[in-house]
């Protein structure tokens, strides 16, 4: 077990799978010579060359579309989209081709393509600070992974590269420098298995990606006041494993979902509905959600900070739920 950054864990997953499987190649804007806008692919061009680490024009539709076609043709493409905001330009490919292919053609062929893209923010204003995971998670036929830790990022990405299905692999720009323990050797993490990160009797906090870390920090502070939270990391949003959430809510009787997306029609809406159905009799308080304020993201630093949920908001909301 060694310490590694989220960025390096992803890079290692790519490197190991490219060494293991000749069919794996990377395509995207600035993934090669530049080394990746967020430096995730730095060094891979030198090791694997221009054939397998392919710079593309700024043309997201054909980046994703050609990746799907290459997957149909027997390869294992990794399409990197510079940010999730640009995935909207490739939406038709993701929605109408990747997620439909296996079903629409009667199960004759699938397209095992991995689309890697970071969500995130950082004074980038309205069009560069979005989080569309709920849109993608709404699609039957598309796997959506959104890891929070270096260990999960590596294990889920390696799993994605061995999957027979298209995978939307959503990273987070503010997590790339986060360091965590990563197991030695080859390992994968299955889709659709949530993880209990912390057990507590008073409230169940459900989260994923960067907000998981905020939730864990809040839980530690709450513990100092003798409020014990269970914190659950969803890890993949489709398939969505809510069994541990339901089990936990039956013990704690309270649930809070924390996401970075706008709460309207976000992941929290889906999760709250399912808790309401499967744990209705156990709830002592309404299921609560915390997410981004429903405005386009502003540029100005203090305004941007106001738009996102923080540790203090989680603490305050949990206390409200307990009173």
């Amino acid at each position, binding site marked *: 077990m060694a310490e590694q950054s989220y960025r390096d864990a992803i890079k290692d997953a790519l490197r190991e799978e490219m060494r293991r499987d000749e069919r794996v190649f990377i395509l995207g804007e600035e993934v090669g010579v530049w080394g990746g806008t967020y430096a995730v692919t730095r060094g891979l061009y030198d090791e694997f060359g221009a054939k397998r680490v392919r710079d593309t024009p700024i043309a997201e539709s054909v980046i994703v579309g050609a990746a799907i*076609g290459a997957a149909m043709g027997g390869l294992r493409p990794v399409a990197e989209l510079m940010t999730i905001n640009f995935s909207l330009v490739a939406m038709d490919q993701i929605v109408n081709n990747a997620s439909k292919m296996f079903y*629409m053609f009667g199960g004759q062929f699938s397209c095992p393509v991995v689309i890697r893209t970071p969500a995130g923010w950082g004074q980038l204003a309205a069009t560069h600070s979005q989080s569309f995971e709920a849109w993608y998670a709404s699609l039957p036929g598309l796997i959506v992974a959104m890891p929070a830790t270096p260990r999960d990022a590596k294990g889920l990405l390696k799993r994605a590269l*061995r999957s027979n299905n298209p995978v939307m692999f959503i990273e987070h720009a503010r997590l790339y420098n986060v360091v965590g323990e990563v197991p030695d050797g080859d390992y*994968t993490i299955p889709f659709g298995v949530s993880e209990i990160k912390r057990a507590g009797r008073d409230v169940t906090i459900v989260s994923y990606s960067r907000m998981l870390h905020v939730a864990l920090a809040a839980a530690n502070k709450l513990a100092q006041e003798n409020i014990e939270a269970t914190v659950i990391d969803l890890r993949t949003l489709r398939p969505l494993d809510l069994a541990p959430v339901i089990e936990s809510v039956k013990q704690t009787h309270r649930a809070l979902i924390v996401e970075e997306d706008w709460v309207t029609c976000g992941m929290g809406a889906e999760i709250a509905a399912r808790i309401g159905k499967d744990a209705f009799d156990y709830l002592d308080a309404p299921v609560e959600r915390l997410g981004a304020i429903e405005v386009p993201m502003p540029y100005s630093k203090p305004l941007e900070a106001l738009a996102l949920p923080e540790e203090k908001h989680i603490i305050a909301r949990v206390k409200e739920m307990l009173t």
Partner: protein
Amino acid sequence: MINTATVANIQPATRDATLSVTREQGLELWRQMVLIRRFEERAEQAYTEGKIGGFMHLYIGEEAIAVGALAGLNPDDDVVTHYRDHGYALARDLAPNALMAELYGKATGVCKGKGGSMHFADPRKHFWGGYAIVGGHIPLAVGLAFAAQYQNQPRVAVAIFGDGATNIGMFHESLNMAKVWNVPLIILVENNQYGMGTAVQRASAVPDMITKALAYNIPAIQVDGNDVLAMREVMLNAAQNARRGEGPQFIEAHTYRWRGHSMGDPQRYRSKDEVEKMKTRDPIARFENRLLEYARATQDDFARGRAEVERVAAEAIEFAETSPFPDPAELYTDVFAPEVTNG
């Protein structure tokens, strides 16, 4: 270099005197065109009887393009086409029974009844599907062509679509990257004069589709799409060039759609006179004349061939009618491919 020399301009006499195929090959191309037409006429009838639903786009009048183009390719060259896909599927030798059953939404359909008219596919025949978002399949063909290049396989991929799709962004993104990557892609544009009901000159800034290929430095050629041998010839050349590593090739085939854009199109955008005039350029009748004149074909050959095609089309209808609808449990299958278990 753009090549605007049109095969159609080459004097027919010099070409037809030898044909470019044997008598048997010629009769086979003719048979495929007649099969497409009769298959579709039977489907059209079934549609009006309410046995086929949804959108159905008929290919009648354009048969020479699919038949000639696929005759110029190897059976393992990858085909990705638009939603007007019946002709290409039949020309690629997908079973008429399974195709008609697909139109009927039956369990025995080529896609188990889940795709319908616009989504015929059979990967065993490198027929990767009809796609129904205009232009959305062109990037897939770029990827298939890249996969062949990456694996050092001699396959080419062909992307097929209409003139209307040349105005959408994915067309331009695809041509650009295909050229930058120098992949063995053939772009085949069926210019049938209308994108749905909008005439080419009302939708495209340039009247000739090949001009758009020029923007990306892709060799391009125009061809009479109602001439099955000319189609075959330009495809043979394009495939040879692409296979040799010369990168993407572009073919613009001129034709005319006899039926509406899809079933139920009132066709207010064109006159009956125009349609009747264009029907005089029937690719099947024209080819029959050439076979009679230059290939010692006889009316008996055609009569026998038509009877055989009639039998195949009738059998397809019979098969579709008597096949069962999918089991209700099929609703839930095929959403995800089986996951690996050793990962």
